[in-house]
């Protein structure tokens, strides 16, 4: 079988190298750079270290949720409960630290545990009851939010201990703690997804469940782990949120799951599964962060910002599908 492809041009080779070596799509990175350049030209306040740290800080909570979304969507699933679970986890942590008065480390554990349990339940329902993930996680969205309101009795829980507040507002070496936590989480998550068996099996699962099964991958077991992991990450995001606003807020994270999924898609995750990269998702989250930051600095109303984000999302998916259709043989 002779090769039917012409020798690919320089640009295509650069694109491919970017995907293979760095696991990111070159287009996303270029859009981020171009957008940043545009903002720097338009606003004298954009280009400064403190503003960059500000952008990273603003992106940190959503970033952690986007990492969760990347794993789930990459495996062919969907988690609409991310924002609500985040709110529940934050309230759980605040409850443990304030109402129960336990040491801060228990509050941290409570956040991640609450998220993980919610994710575990999602996983059980999706794999054993065969209810579609869309519906299961939609149900959990309401369940978690309701539970958060019950635990907190509808009010924010104030009075968090200093150690917890430091997680959200501390600046070791001048870098905000949430940024450090996000970067560490992203690095670990990226390595897992791109370089370990578990990560590769996750993407294979999203690509073709039949292929995964034929390869001996325990499909249902794997999915359960993914959903539990997603919940635990939402728990971590809940901890960051609570620490940043210094309150266990039951209304935290409303609509955050949509933003997280948007970041993953803009970053090159295939909504139907099989292709995902954590670095790509981080770039997607940063694109949204730069857009919001820049437009705020330019005093553009937040409603227009939402329109801009929507437009970028549609554009990103269009470009993505264009590439996919060009490459595949349909």
């Amino acid at each position, binding site marked *: 079988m002779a090769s039917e492809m012409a020798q690919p041009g320089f640009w295509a080779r650069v694109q491919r190298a970017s995907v293979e070596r760095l696991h990111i799509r070159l287009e996303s990175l270029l859009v981020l750079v171009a957008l940043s350049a545009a903002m720097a030209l338009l606003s004298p306040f954009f280009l400064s270290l403190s503003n960059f740290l500000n952008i990273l800080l603003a992106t940190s909570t959503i970033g952690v949720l986007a990492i969760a979304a990347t794993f789930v969507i990459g495996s062919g699933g969907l988690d609409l409960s991310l924002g609500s679970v985040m709110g529940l986890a934050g309230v759980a942590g605040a409850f443990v630290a304030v109402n129960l008065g336990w040491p801060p480390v228990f509050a941290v554990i409570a956040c991640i545990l609450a998220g993980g349990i919610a994710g575990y339940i999602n996983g059980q329902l999706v794999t054993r009851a065969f209810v579609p993930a869309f519906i299961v996680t939609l149900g959990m969205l309401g369940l978690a939010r309701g539970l958060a309101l019950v635990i907190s009795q509808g009010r924010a829980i104030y009075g968090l201990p200093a150690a917890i507040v430091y997680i959200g507002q501390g600046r070791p070496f001048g870098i905000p703690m949430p940024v450090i936590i996000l970067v560490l989480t992203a690095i670990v998550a990226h390595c897992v997804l791109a370089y370990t068996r578990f990560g590769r099996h996750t993407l294979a699962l999203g690509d073709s469940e039949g*292929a995964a099964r034929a390869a001996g991958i*325990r499909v249902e077991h794997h999915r359960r782990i993914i959903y539990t992991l997603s919940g635990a990450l939402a728990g971590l995001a809940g901890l960051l949120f609570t620490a940043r606003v210094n309150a266990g807020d039951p209304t935290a994270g409303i609509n955050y799951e949509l933003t997280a999924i948007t970041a993953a898609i803009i970053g090159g995750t295939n909504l139907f599964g099989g292709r995902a990269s954590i670095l790509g998702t981080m770039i997607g989250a940063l694109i949204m962060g730069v857009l919001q930051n820049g437009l705020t600095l330019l005093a553009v109303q937040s409603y227009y910002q939402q329109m801009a984000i929507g437009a970028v999302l549609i554009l990103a998916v269009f470009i993505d599908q264009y590439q996919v259709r060009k490459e595949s043989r349909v």
Partner: protein
Amino acid sequence: MTLLSLQGIRKSFGAVDVLHGVDLSVAAGEVVGLVGDNGAGKSTLMKTITGIYRADAGSIEFDGKDILALDPGQRRELGIEMIYQDLSLAKQQDVASNIFLGREPTRKVFGLFPGFVDKAEMDRQAAKMIERLGARLPSINRSVGSFSGGQQQTVAIARALTFNPKLVIMDEPTAALAVREVQSVLDLIRRLRSEGIAVILISHRLNDVLSVTDRIVVLRHGRADADLVTSKTNMNEVVSRIVGGGDISAAAAHEQRG
């Protein structure tokens, strides 16, 4: 020496009975053709061998071991491989990822972290296997979804052959291929036989089946209706056994049950 022995295999999906007690045996280095009309249960039977489906009743012995309780991964390790009709490839992954899916080689990073997949090693071995098959692919690193049908099948074949299989099941391997490619698949089957690897070939192209198999098993109404020796039979006999002669009422009943 019998490599694979199926006895009394039954399988239903809800109210639909597909396999009604199938007996089948394959010897090492033997090529067995499995033919039958649509809905006879050929693919289902094969999937009970690879473990994708769990048989409701009956026994499966492979290489002297009872494998009924083993999952697909474990059965692969014993040497059972299958090239599926739809190829079951992960279209967005590259060649090496597909070949090694589920059994990726790992290495330690910085001498510290285990569990990292050894991509370089995977690529190396995948390239070697592709070369052994005498095929040329556009690139080891492109997603297989961008390959032609024949190239994708090469990847599926490589996946089945890389890990020293003892039994290779091929489900309609020539259905979508050009003439030259069909011949290379048949040559491949002959090569496998000469290496002592057993092959089960499912195909509706009876000329191919007659040209390359040692035995032909006809599946009808979820049962192994005939077990013919290829050298002693001909096209007419095979077709009439597939269609079933005068047994129209049984055919109608089977179709009715689904």
